[in-house]
């Protein structure tokens, strides 16, 4: 099969959806041809194909961007809004949380709000404190919205396509460090259903539950630890919320141990919900407490070696697994 990058995978998903459905359109800062198709080039080539009305470069006005997406969705269209970096959701939470997520419920089901909000973030590029946060936990805590993130190009294509299909709002989180990641192209029409996790690697000793970029770290750690005789099962959530509880619980019932992992800061992160739920539902299967690894509880620092120390590195993951296994 052909190899594609994450960026190409995303672009293909959007391209395909736009070709099939005239109601799909993109909007966001710098997204159109005149600006080079977005600062991360995800929307490159689409203006030429679908025209300026369907690839709208916007002012720096995130509230107006998401608000416009909400309004267009109420009128039956399927907007894909780009928020350049995840920290900027902080200026438009109202449109996302008080409106997009609630309009189906508050209208008694009359006005579903099928929008996709694509955004990106990531620690390790030296962007500093205001451009690196992973804020998925905020959205996971809000009813009425899907939170999705891919860890590889095939999933990127399939999850984005499914997100555009969805009849509810989706926060679609990309990781800057993964745009160049290569992988197999699953081909046209490919969908990965929302709410379904993947067992990225099977194992029998411990379930390592993660998503996005850290799936790569998890897989590395799993293959390293296999050499030491520890069999790690890696679960890639793909949809962070509402997440695939069945797959997670089945895995933990099998392995008897669990570790959650995310780049977001650990306290009150998504790992807390997963851990709390596992211990409640799998109490009798657990051989020890569920452990959690996450980013350091501070703003992301600028200096490169501080930033590297900040992230949940592989040694930290290994340490927690060994603790869980009683091997430390």
């Amino acid at each position, binding site marked *: 099969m052909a190899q594609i990058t994450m960026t190409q995978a995303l672009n293909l998903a959007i391209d395909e959806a736009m070709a099939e459905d005239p109601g799909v359109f993109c909007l966001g800062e710098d997204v159109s041809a005149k600006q080079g198709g977005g600062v991360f080039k995800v929307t490159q080539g689409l203006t030429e194909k679908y025209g300026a009305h369907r690839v709208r470069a916007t002012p720096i006005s995130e509230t107006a961007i998401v608000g416009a997406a909400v309004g267009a969705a109420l009128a039956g269209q399927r907007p894909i809004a780009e928020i350049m970096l995840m920290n900027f959701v902080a200026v438009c939470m109202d449109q996302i949380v008080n409106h997009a997520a609630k309009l189906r419920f508050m209208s008694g089901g009359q006005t579903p709000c099928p929008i996709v909000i694509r955004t990106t973030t990531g620690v390790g590029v030296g962007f500093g404190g205001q451009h690196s946060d992973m804020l998925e936990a905020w959205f996971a805590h809000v009813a009425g919205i899907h939170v999705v993130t891919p860890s590889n190009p095939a999933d990127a294509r399939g999850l984005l396509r499914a997100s555009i299909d969805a009849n509810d709002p989706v926060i679609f989180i990309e990781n800057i460090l993964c745009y160049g990641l290569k992988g197999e192209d699953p081909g046209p029409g490919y969908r990965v259903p929302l709410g379904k996790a993947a067992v990225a690697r099977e194992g029998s000793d411990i379930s390592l539950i993660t998503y996005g970029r850290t799936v790569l770290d998890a897989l590395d750690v799993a293959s390293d630890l296999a050499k030491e005789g520890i069999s790690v099962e890696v679960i890639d959530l793909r949809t962070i919320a*509402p997440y695939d509880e069945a797959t997670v619980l089945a895995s933990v019932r099998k392995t008897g141990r669990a570790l959650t992992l995310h780049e977001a800061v650990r306290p009150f992160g998504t790992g807390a919900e997963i851990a709390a739920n596992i211990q409640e539902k799998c109490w009798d299967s657990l051989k020890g407490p569920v452990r959690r690894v996450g980013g350091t509880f501070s703003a992301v620092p600028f200096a490169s070696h501080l930033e590297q120390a900040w992230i949940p590195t592989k040694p930290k993951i290994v340490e927690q697994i060994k603790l869980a296994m009683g091997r430390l």
Partner: protein
Amino acid sequence: MPAIDRDKLRDIYTRTMKVNRTDEKFRALLMQGKVAVMYYCVRGQELVSAAAMAALEPQDYVVCTYRGQGEQTAKGIPMEKWWGECLGKATGTCKGKGGTMHITDPATGIMVTTGVVGSGLPIANGLAMASQNNGDGRVTLVSFGDGAANIGAFHEALNMAQLYKLPVIFLCQNNRYGEHTAYADHTASPSIAMRAEGYGMKGVRVDGNDVFQIYPAVKEAVERARAGEGPTLIEAMCYRMMGHFFGSDFSYMPPEHLEEMKREDPLPKLRKVMLEHQFTEEELDAIVAEIDAQIDAAVAHALAAPLPDVDEIYRDVLEETA
């Protein structure tokens, strides 16, 4: 003085009285303790809403606020459904889940009623953007207050609307107060309308209590929008003749203001216009009587209607829970 034909005058009068009689009825029910919900009175602003809705076509979109009774009833939400929602009944537009601050009725074009100040403007742009994209010829009107003109969403929405020449109308109902704060204590410029210029947009300030100002202003904005000429900001001057919501204290309003407000009451003014245009007292009273009858029936229906099923709290969260 631009002319308005008699049919349109009758239409505006009917809508105005529908708004007013609904408001009176709601206050009566609250006063009698027959219902106990949040209600944001529209006394003093009836004509603005009614004239604006009369300038739209049925398929046009409207976005309004918690103080949206005027737009909602004047646009034509069936009264039973409107009252049902306000009373939290299963028969309401939103099955009682939205409530007085969140009336939605796509069938009549009431697309969103928001409780967050200013947040309707960007959403209105989106509705208009959809119309621009799919060429359905619809116009979107969003109503908001003077206080809302100071929140970021207003600014972002106006700039974006003008940039794309969206078919949208920004109708600011300047009732001189944002909750307890008077205009001059929240805004340093002499008008909201003049802000339009900073977006390259057309802006007009009109007397919202004068049908010959408010109706033509909205009508022209609708025509411009429909013709692809872009958005308009209309500032309609009016008065909030009651407190911020029913039952809330309004001792902070100075007596001169209360005097002025009474002098400018749109209802006697409109009645006078109607009489000048050869409508008879009897004709006008008959219109009101019919409205009252409809309202009474709708209220009775809503009062008798069933409560929503308790499981509604789990429904309509996501599609799979619908």
